[in-house]
């Protein structure tokens, strides 16, 4: 039985807190406060960290951490990614420029992404199809990376579990030599 630490990141409003809440077996630790940034249509936002726990069918324990989305909290990104076995970037296709958002996290975690497994989950794709999964893949390729990109609904437990499973599969592939 192993313990994994997985970190969720991505823009404000993409559903990081929701995703952790959707799968956590223990009441998640949430550091939401009132959002005063009117350029974002949400009432609360994470400024510390989110934390939840999940046991996989094989008995592996997953500790899920979430970062604040805004780049002014990038000092926490560096703290939270320490000892993480994988990174999940949640994207939000309803935002004005989701590919630019993606770059924020690919740049923000560029050192870690050299060897840290990562999966990208794209939310609100059906309602906002102008940017497709292939656009994400193309941008990731420009960084010289190959990462799985999946369509997800952060509110659905199955979708979040699929993201985690995909990440763990990547982890195993890198451990045992793909």
């Amino acid at each position: 039985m192993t313990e994994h630490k997985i970190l969720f990141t991505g823009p404000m409003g993409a559903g990081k807190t929701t995703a952790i809440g959707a799968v956590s077996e223990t009441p998640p630790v949430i550091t939401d406060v009132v959002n005063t940034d009117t350029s974002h249509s949400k009432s609360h936002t994470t400024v510390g960290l989110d934390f939840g726990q999940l046991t996989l069918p094989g008995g592996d324990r997953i500790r899920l951490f979430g970062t604040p989305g805004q780049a002014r909290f990038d000092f926490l990104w560096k703290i939270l990614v320490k000892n993480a076995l994988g990174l999940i970037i949640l994207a939000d296709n309803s935002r004005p420029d989701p590919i630019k958002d993606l770059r924020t996290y690919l740049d923000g975690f560029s050192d870690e992404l050299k060897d840290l497994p990562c999966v990208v989950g794209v939310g609100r794709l059906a309602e906002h199809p102008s940017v497709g999964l292939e656009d994400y893949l193309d941008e990731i390729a420009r960084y010289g990376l190959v990462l799985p990109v999946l369509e997800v609904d952060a509110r659905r437990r199955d979708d979040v579990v699929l993201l985690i499973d995909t990440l763990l599969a990547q982890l195993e592939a890198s451990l045992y030599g793909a």
Partner: protein
Amino acid sequence: MKLGAPFHLSSETKAWVHREAQRLLEEVSGVVAVVVATVDGFDVGSAMKQGDPERVAAMASSIFAISAVVSQEASLGRSRSVTIDTDEGFALVHSVHRPEAGLVISVIAGQEAILGQVAYQVSQFARDLAAA
């Protein structure tokens, strides 16, 4: 979907926050920075001898949010302040409970500063700001 709640301080209150931050910086021995920020990490008024108020504001909101979940987990009521005691001074983050949206005051102080004195001044500032 609910919009972000814009944070409003009257220009009068803002000017007072600035003056008060400046006063603490000048009058309290050892203080090197005073930053007042929203709970989501935006600087609303500051006075600093060094450093970047925007970064201090973001860090203060994180520290405060984490202290709030700790006090909640331990059933200790609302979190009032956090002190980071360091080799060369201390940082103090104090909450301001205002009805519409809270604020946090951060003070960074060097070795010459006396913790009790700074804590007293900051809690006075927080009380006045909560009522302002």
